[in-house]
C-alpha cells in the first residue's frame, strides 16, 4: 500500500504545527521520521491516522483520499497507529486489549489466528494474557500496544516513539520485531527522537524541523550527514 502525503498543513490552536510537508512511502517500505520535540513528527502521524484534521493538503492511500475520514474508518482502511506513550487500556486485561485491536473484524476464528501470530511475536503477552494492562511493565505495555495495532491487520503501521523510556535491551528487542513485521509486508513508519536507533532499523529517513521536512535520504546517508550527526546524534 502506497502512502502519499502532499503539502500537508496542520494548525494547533492557531500555531502552525505542520507547514506543508510532502512525502511518499512505497508499499512495504520501512521509513523513519526524526527530529526534535515539537518538530511535527507526532503531528504527521496523528494527521495520517485521522486524530487531527489538516488545514490544507492531502493524504491518500493507493490514490484514495483519506484526509477527511474519521480515525476509526482509517483503521479499517489498513492504517494502524501505535500512539506515543503506549496508551493501553489499563483496566482491561491483555487479551481484552488485543481483541479490541481487532474491533473492526467479526470472524472469530481469523481473529484468534491473528492473536496467535501476535503472541508469536510477543510471547510474554501470552503469559500475561489475563492480567490487567496496568500491571505490565513499560516494555510489556509497549509490546501490547504494538500487538494491539497488529490485530487490525494493518498494511501501514505508524509508530510514535516506541523506545520512549525503555531499557536498551527492550528497545533492541522491539526494533527486531519491527523489522520482522516489516518483512511480512507491512509498511512501517517510525517516528523517533532516538535517531540512532531509528536510522539503524530503516531503509529511508526524513528529518523534520519546525514543521517542515528539511532533509530526506537513505538511512545510512543520513547517519553520515553532518547536520544530522550534530543535531540528532550529538556527535
Amino acid at each position, binding site marked *: 500500500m502506497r502512502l502519499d502525503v502532499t503539502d500537508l498543513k496542520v494548525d494547533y*490552536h492557531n*500555531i502552525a504545527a505542520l507547514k506543508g510537508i510532502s512525502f511518499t512511502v512505497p508499499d512495504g517500505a520501512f521509513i523513519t521520521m526524526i527530529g526534535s520535540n515539537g518538530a511535527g513528527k507526532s503531528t504527521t502521524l496523528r494527521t495520517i491516522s485521522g486524530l487531527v484534521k489538516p488545514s490544507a493538503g492531502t493524504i491518500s492511500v493507493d490514490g484514495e483520499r483519506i484526509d477527511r475520514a474519521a480515525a476509526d474508518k482509517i483503521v479499517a482502511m489498513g492504517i494502524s497507529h501505535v500512539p506515543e506513550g503506549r496508551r493501553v487500556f489499563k483496566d482491561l486485561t491483555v487479551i481484552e486489549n488485543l481483541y479490541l485491536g481487532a474491533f473492526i473484524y467479526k470472524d472469530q476464528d481469523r481473529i484468534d489466528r491473528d492473536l496467535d501470530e501476535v503472541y508469536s511475536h510477543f510471547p510474554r503477552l501470552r503469559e500475561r494474557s489475563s492480567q490487567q494492562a496496568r500491571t505490565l511493565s513499560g516494555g510489556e505495555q509497549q509490546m501490547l500496544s504494538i500487538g494491539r495495532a497488529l490485530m487490525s491487520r494493518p498494511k501501514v503501521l505508524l509508530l510514535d516513539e516506541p523506545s520512549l523510556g525503555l531499557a536498551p535491551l527492550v528497545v533492541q528487542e522491539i526494533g527486531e520485531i519491527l523489522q520482522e513485521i516489516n518483512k511480512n509486508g507491512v509498511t512501517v513508519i517510525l517516528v523517533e*527522537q532516538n535517531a540512532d536507533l531509528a536510522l539503524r532499523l530503516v531503509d529511508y529517513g526524513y528529518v523534520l524541523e519546525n514543521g517542515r521536512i528539511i532533509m530526506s535520504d537513505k538511512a545510512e546517508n543520513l547517519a553520515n550527514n553532518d547536520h544530522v550527526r550534530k543535531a540528532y*546524534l550529538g556527535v
Partner: protein
Amino acid sequence: MAILEVKKLTKRFGGLIAVNDVSFSVDEGEIHGLIGPNGAGKSTTFKVIAGFLAPSSGDIVFRNTSIKGRKPFRIAKDGVVRTFQETTLFQELSVFENVLIGVHKEAKTDVFSAVLGLDRKRQVRASMDANQVIEFIGLSERKDQLAVELPLGFQRVLAIAVALASKPSLLLMDEPFAGMNPEETRHMMELTRKVRESGVTIVLVEHNMKAVMGLCDRLTVLNFGTVLADGTPEQVQNNPDVIQAYLGGA
C-alpha cells in the same frame, strides 16, 4: 559556591522508580546542563526541584536551606523559577501583560489597596520592571502583540521573560531549544548567556546537544534515573559510559 544541592533524591511512581538516589550540585553563576536519553528522569528531577512533584526521599537545598516539599509558588518566591517544555504562556494576553504577571512578588496587592488604588505606586513600578525585562530580552517592538500571535521562537523568549520578571536567582529551563531552527537556536543561546551574565544561575534540561555543549559549564548525565556522569562537556563527551548508554555507541 553551590547555590543548589540535590541530595540523594529519589522519586517513585507506584512501583516505578523514576529518579533513584540522584545527587548533584549547581554552582552560583554557572549554566548547568541536565541531560540524558528520553525517560532518564530529567523531567522528573526538574519537576521535583521546582516543587511540582514531591520527592519520595532525599533533599533539595537552595542557598543552604532545604526547599524540599515546598509548593511551587513558595519555591518561586525563594528565587527558583522554572520555564516549561511546551510553550506555556497566557496566550490571550499581550506580551506586556504576560511579563507583568511574572512581576508577582513586587506587584502583589490586597483587595483594599486594589480597590482604593493605594497600590498605584507599586503597580507603576511593576510596569517599569516589566518593561525593563522586555527590553532586556529584546521584545520591545512586540510589546503589545498577543502572545498567541508570536512566532514559536519569540514565544520561547517570552516564556523566559515571564520567568525573569519574577527575579529568580536560579532559572530552571526545560528544553528551551526544542523544535527550534538553527537561527532561533543561535538567538536563544545568546539570550541564555545574557541571562547568566545578568547574574542568574541556570539549570538547563535539553536534548539539543549543540546547544548543551556550547552553553553549559558543567553537565550532569542521567540514565535510568541515576547519575551516569558529571563534569565539563569535554569530560562527559569522552566518558565511555555516556557514549555507550546515551549516545548508543554511534
